[in-house]
């Protein structure tokens, strides 16, 4: 994708995003509840891409391997969207009382469980935590991006500092995402809790990060010398990593289902009962089929992983299913959200379009091949194993 094409993409994304935003705003005037729900899901989905991508960058500093060089710059660049996403939190705050039962004083007064949880689930603390998460994420991202750019200029930057930062960075990521997922998604059903939920949420983010960066790298492969990095050997490694996270996601989702199904405890099964209502049950089966079995079967094949277009298609499919999964996780828990609403389609276009425009702008003229990293040479020379 040349710079001209990037500008076109940015313009189109901006146009679609703005148009959808206007339509969604009009819709919000008529059915604010549906708008806020759709906004929360769209926002969580867009947020999962930069967060997952940053986790991948840090993971790669620790693990090494040529695959990470391919997606380092496209992944780092997602960080530029974090301030925008922080701004997009505002509608969530405005819609809090519609989305979160515990934010409604009336509901809390009527329910001893909510009163018990008030120590954690209350509006000021919720907002303070959100500020903390964004400060942490933007801070970590800023360091990663700056150091990486510094290395392009300073040839013999000590590579150890990246590793020394990535370890604690991942710990920070793990803890913040844990509590962010509890705050923003799990607390929608404030009487329900599951100890594996935050981990499942984080794995979903990393999977979205892989899917997005792989697709982006493939789309940008006509740039030289970046194109030499997007070679079959590295794509196979990336495909395998994406497969691993598909499996991890399926593993966590299934074990949670099995344990709650087997335990059959009243407070727990409600979560699944809400998600096997007509309509949602179909979504659940779509998740099993298209979020797990189909990518699993495709990514097992070397031919698919070696072929850039095929791999990017699978990545795109996974990305779409991530959005579906976010819907499935969030919506059935909100009372009154069972019915389909046209805003559920328009709002993701608004948030996603504006997000993509910000991202595409960042890529313009960016050196996609990091300089002065010894792994680059190895990654360029990589050939089939």
């Amino acid at each position, binding site marked *: 994708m040349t710079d001209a094409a990037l500008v076109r993409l940015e313009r189109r994304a901006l146009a679609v995003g703005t148009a959808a935003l206007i339509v969604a705003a009009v819709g919000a005037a008529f059915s604010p509840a549906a708008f806020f729900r759709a906004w929360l899901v769209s926002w969580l989905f867009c947020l999962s891409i930069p967060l997952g991508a940053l986790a991948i960058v840090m993971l790669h500093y620790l693990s090494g391997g040529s695959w990470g060089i391919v997606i380092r710059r496209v992944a780092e660049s997602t960080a530029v969207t974090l301030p925008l996403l922080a701004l997009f939190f505002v509608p969530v705050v405005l819609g809090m009382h519609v989305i979160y039962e515990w934010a409604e004083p009336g509901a809390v007064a009527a329910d001893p469980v909510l009163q018990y949880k008030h120590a954690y689930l209350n509006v000021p603390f919720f907002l303070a935590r959100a500020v903390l998460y964004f400060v942490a994420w933007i801070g970590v991202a800023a360091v990663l991006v700056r150091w990486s750019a510094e290395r392009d200029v300073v040839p013999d930057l000590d590579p150890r500092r990246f590793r020394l930062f990535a370890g604690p960075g991942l710990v920070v990521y793990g803890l913040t995402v844990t509590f962010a997922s509890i705050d923003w998604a799990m607390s929608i059903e404030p009487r329900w809790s599951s100890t594996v939920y935050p981990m499942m949420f984080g794995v979903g983010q990393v999977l979205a990060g892989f899917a997005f960066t792989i697709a982006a790298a493939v789309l940008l492969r006509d740039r030289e010398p970046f194109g030499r990095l997007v070679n079959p050997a590295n794509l196979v490694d990336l495909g395998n990593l994406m497969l691993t996270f598909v499996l991890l996601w399926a593993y966590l989702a*299934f074990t949670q*289902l*099995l344990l709650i*199904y*087997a335990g*059959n405890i009243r407070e727990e099964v409600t979560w699944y009962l809400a998600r096997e209502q007509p309509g949602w049950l179909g979504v659940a089966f779509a998740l099993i089929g298209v979020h797990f079995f189909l990518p699993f079967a495709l990514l097992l094949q070397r031919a698919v992983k070696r072929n850039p277009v095929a791999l990017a298609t699978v990545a795109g499919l996974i990305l779409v299913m991530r959005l579906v999964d976010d819907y499935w996780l969030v919506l059935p828990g909100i009372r009154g959200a069972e019915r389909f609403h046209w805003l559920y389609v328009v709002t993701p276009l608004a948030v996603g379009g504006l997000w993509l425009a910000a991202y595409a702008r960042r890529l313009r003229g960016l050196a996609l091949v990091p300089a002065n990293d010894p792994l680059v040479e190895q990654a360029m020379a990589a050939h089939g194993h």
Partner: protein
Amino acid sequence: MTGPRMWGLVAEFESPDALLAAAHRVREAGYRRIDACVPFPVEGLTEALGFRPTWLPLLVLTGALLGAAGGFFMQWYAMGVWYPLNVGGRPLNSWPMFIPITFELAVLVGGLTAALGMLALNRLPMPYHPLFNVPRFARATQDRFFLAIDARDARFERGATAELLHGLGAAEVSEVAR
């Protein structure tokens, strides 16, 4: 032509590269019944010798799918049909609870197919092979690289073939008794 007591010729090389080069040349010369014996898998050797890809992955996939299907069927049949048992009001076909054993049996059957299928396709165990008659061949499992040509190869001629092998830089060429 060759005598009935001869299995073929085997040439010894000192490095994987020499063997690879020799394998290419022997194949170019038109020999087809060739094999190499090496102390570790040398990259590019199967291509040099012109071997076809093996069926093993397909066999293992079949085994794993059969294991999974058989495992699920066994549980569904036993718990739902043969002796229907209501546990805590769950449906008789409580499929989430059948997944663990289904998975284990898929891995078990698939894994056994991989290990035993590999041995069967390789015709192992094979207690005797003519190549073991060559004293130096013991080093094929240690540090030397051997190229063997079967006497039944259409191009095989005792003298000419041995000469060809010598010309390829073989450290030693031995005749293999049957």
